[in-house]
């Protein structure tokens, strides 16, 4: 597992596009102590390593797909009404450098 320290946590936060205060990183370090020790305990539960990972609460397999029929799209003004910076019917951002 990746080393958990302030730097790796800060990197993880920045990859999620936000930053936190020093105090919060310390707080988070303490929380990770709790989590990692709890997860280590879980690792010791008999049979856990052989269990199949569960995504859905029970077997939810379905056979239904959506028919390929187009419906009326949103009115452009409605679609964009929540965007803060709109120019010529498009959302504006500072230039995206590729």
């Amino acid at each position, binding site marked *: *597992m*990746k080393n*958990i320290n302030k730097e790796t*946590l800060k990197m*993880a*936060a*920045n*990859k*999620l*596009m*936000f*930053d*936190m*205060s020093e105090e*919060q990183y310390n*707080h*988070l370090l303490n*929380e*990770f102590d*709790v*989590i990692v020790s*709890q*997860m280590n*305990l*879980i*690792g*010791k*539960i008999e*049979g*856990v*390593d052989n*269990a*199949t*990972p*569960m*995504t*859905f*609460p*029970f077997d*939810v397999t*379905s056979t*239904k797909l*959506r028919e390929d029929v187009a419906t009326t799209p*949103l009115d452009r003004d*409605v*679609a964009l*009404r*929540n*965007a*803060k*910076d709109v120019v010529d019917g498009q*959302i504006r*951002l*500072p*230039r*995206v*450098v590729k």
Partner: protein
Amino acid sequence: MEYMNKSLTQIHNALIKGEVTPLELVKEAIEKAKKDDNNAFEYICEKEALEAVKKLDESNKDSLLWGVPVVIKDNYSTKDIPTTASSNILNGYVPVFSAEAVIRLEKAGAIVIAKTTMDELAMGGSGTTGHLGVTYNPWDKSKTRIVGGSSCGSAAAMASGIVPIALGSDTGDSVRKPASYAALVGFKPTWGRISRFGLFPFATSLDHVGYFSRNVYDSAYLLNVLAGHDDKDFSSSFKEVNDYTSKINEGVINKRIAVIKGIIDSIKDKTVLASFDESINYLKKQGATVDVVEIDINLLKSIFPTYVIISCAEATSNNANLDGIKFGNRIEGESFEEVMMNTRTNGFSPLIKRRFVIGSFSLMRENQDELFVRAQKCRRMIVDAFNKVFEKYDAIYCPASPSIAPLIKGSSDTLSDEYLIADNYMAFGNMGGYPSITLPIGFENNMPFGANLTCKPFDEANLFSIANEIEKGTGLKDLVAKEGR
């Protein structure tokens, strides 16, 4: 005459007899909402509600919800009504569509009068972390106790007698825990039973539409209105919808109920245990078999950490759309990265950010096996263990909280080992997608506490009939926190 502190049936009868009109009900609810001092509301939709009353469809008068004011947790998309999920990042967001659950309520004649406060993005259990601050427990007039979360505003609005029905959402116990603290019936159905379309996701595989009512019958009735497949939700079930009220009085003769030993053992509060025992004795007297059943204590202890890892992991992805570009409270910057960075740094509270880091860290390539995948494996073990109990028993029954509502001071939503089982076990209901209901069973120092009943997937009818019997035994229903109590 007040009506908003009554049950659906009582209000409906008054409407039918012409004692009161929908408009008067809406006015009563809005007046009360305006006077609320528990921080229950994000937004009171007075204008919209008064418009909606005018448009009520008379042909729908048989519906118990017809003309009845309701409130909606602020994580349901409501068309043209501001929706923030109590997060600053969504300040100013006005959705362009309504959640399926809201649409079904409105079709049944309900009138939405307000959006309620919640823990920010539903990621908390105390009702203290929303952007409007602490939501108080109406049962405690000194305003020193939490009402619980994350559906805090909905619980507070119910307990204050402002509306008879409130929509909440339940990812770990976010409806069922506050119900315990506020003397309400709190219910979440089988995963996939009610469409999640329009519910802001916290942790998709654990998220459930849930709600509060004043009694078990209203809860069953409401499921009739909300349940059923929705093409817009690819996890919603095709199973047919029953009339969930039809078996409500069938009693508990020959029904088998399991009490989980490790959970009971983790509870120390004697008043809670005494009331719980009393309700068990009543169930036995009515013909039910009640056994204490063991589940590996390590599995019970693992429920919470498993829940934390899975829910935080899914949450960090689910909320990645909140970047200020398409909607929400954008904060400008020199580049798109800066726009996202500024928006998200300012928009989320420290608690939320910590949870996102936990979730993201769990999903990283080099950590996934030991954190996220291990949690998913443990989820399987936990669900298998409870499924095994359901092979022999109709229901699992335990106290819904280890005590009455805690004091605000000291409840912080920081992750800790304290009350590891008793305070967090109800998340097994989300992991297994089981239908689950909390209902009041007693009081301590005038503060309520409840018990929780859980059945196997799609066994809601059975759940309501057993819960109804428990309610008969306690006589605790249609409760509202009284002024000056």
